């Protein structure tokens, strides 16, 4: 019983501290943002494949990835909650992955 109360106090103290949410956002920006840069570059590589040729399309995807990374990171810090930030980036990643897969079917 006593244990339960202290644990609750513990979780309440640490996880309601706004710093944790900032930390969570930083993690989202760094890792989910990097994932976004990767998936978006692969998507662009497939999207431009027909018009630019395989390697150029891929290269353009890589060149633009840093800008997409910055936009993703900025977006993480502009939404109202950290949960939204994670949710948004993860779903965007999934969308890019799905689109890349679709385009790969079309291109091959």
């Amino acid at each position, binding site marked *: 019983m006593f244990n339960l109360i202290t644990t609750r106090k513990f979780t309440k103290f640490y996880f309601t501290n706004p710093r944790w949410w900032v930390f969570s956002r930083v993690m989202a920006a760094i890792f989910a943002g990097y994932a976004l*840069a*990767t998936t978006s570059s692969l998507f662009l590589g497939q999207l431009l494949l027909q018009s630019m040729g395989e*390697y*150029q399309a*891929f*290269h353009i995807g890589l060149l633009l990835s*840093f800008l997409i*990374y910055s936009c993703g990171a*900025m977006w993480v810090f*502009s939404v109202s909650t950290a949960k939204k930030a994670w949710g948004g980036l993860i779903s965007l990643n999934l969308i890019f992955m799905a689109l890349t897969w679709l385009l790969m079917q079309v291109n091959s």
Partner: protein
Amino acid sequence: MKGSFRQSMKWLHTWVGLVVGWILVFMFITGTAGYFDDEITRWMEPERPLTATHIDKSKLLDISQHYLETHVKNAKEWRVILPNSRDANLKVMWQEQPEEGKRFGKFSTKVLDTDTDTGLAIDNLRETAGGRTLYRMHYRLHYMPSIVAYWIVGFCTMLMLIAVITGVIFHKKIFSDFFTFRAKKGLIGWLDIHNVLSVTAIPFHFMITYSGLIFFLITYMILSVNIGITETQKDKYFNEVFPRTVEVEKSDDYQPLASLSDMYAKSHKYWQEDTLAYVKVEYPLDKNARVKFTRWNTDLTYNPDDELFFSGETGKLLNIAAKQVTMSGQIHRGFISLHEGLFASPMVRWLYLIIGLMGTGMIASGLILWTTKRKPKQMKNTNGPDFGYRLVEQLNIGTIVGFPIAVAMYFWANRLLPVEMENRAEWEIHCLFISWALLLIYPAFRSGLVAWFEQLKIAAFVFCFIPVLNFITTDKHLGISLPLRDWNYAGFDLVMLVIGVAFAFTAYKVKKHIPVAQKSHAKLTKNDIENKVTDETISTLAATKETS
């Protein structure tokens, strides 16, 4: 996150800037110095003869060829770098045959003495890390494996890119601020300085940050590369993005090299102007040897006409197919050229230096702004400013003024360390980092403004003293280099002097702001004041007693 979108961006701008600000100051200073790396190396090797630009290029080619043929027999590649506006000496470089399984062999460089026809290398050059190592710290840091350094640098650059973009976003009146510079003290003054330095050079700041990331495109986006293309496709991809000229096959049959000066005469037919920059010989003294003449870039990316190929055996002009460049490859090359500024004429190079210093100033003023904004509130704290504030202030002083001093100590070490010392080049670098470490710690024992003032004084002294040091330790001081108009050598001394004077001026400005109480280095604490009061009361009491 903080109310409106603009407010969130402002918050983000502040914190990404603060987190990596000090490393960025380090990168900007070393990078800016890198635009003059050849000139710095030349100053750090004072044993070199003064200048060789007055000698005809075909004679210089003869001298170099003679030297290389006699001294460097089994090399993969020779290079002759002709005297130019950045480096007035004749230099030869060569690459030894690579070891099993390696792509490149060991590189060596020699400066040639042009006074004798046989071309002797100047062998008594002191061992120095030179301008090149200073420049290499810009992207490779030091004391760590290169891959770790690349990722640290990449992280900082990425945050700087975010800082640049957010800065533009939350800035409401980007154009009106361009014209409003209020020379005020305190917060508004620093804000205006930060704005002017950022806004005036914003295209440069964006270009330099973005292109910095592009340098290590494959390293940073390794996940994409591993998923996107297979191992076998990688070679094709690299060849398409960074095409190379058809390579030479080594034949292993000995064949003396045709005269380089004859080829030089032939090159005049194709290049009206005499702009030959360097000559490269692939597989010299081989039957299949190929000679490449390269002139100063006439294009930001790639102009096939900048290169002429000759057969090493016959000396005849070869018709080598131009490299096939792609659009994305051109964009890539363009950004990298802009970043490196190798195409820059002397004027443009000076512009690079000035904008580089503006970038340094932008980051430095941003860091100072962080403390200036929080100062009034921090000073009201009963226990004095808190730890975070003091840490930022200390790092600011130790980096913004401390790091330039450390660079000056690097130049001092070059002149003062014994010439025969072992690992001399490495010790020059140790001197730089030891001084920086000391200057980072020093402000902990001083109150803010006093530490600023004292370090600025040190900076003014160490920079102004460099020409004097050069005068004492070498025979090529300003009194000799100026009349001979060796601008690269004299220019270094003069620039150091200018930097020293600038620091002295800043120190003078800062001195005015130091309260009188702190000037005598006696910090008045609450206790002191109380003691003083009691002393006074006692003496007045005693005085009243006496009179009564």
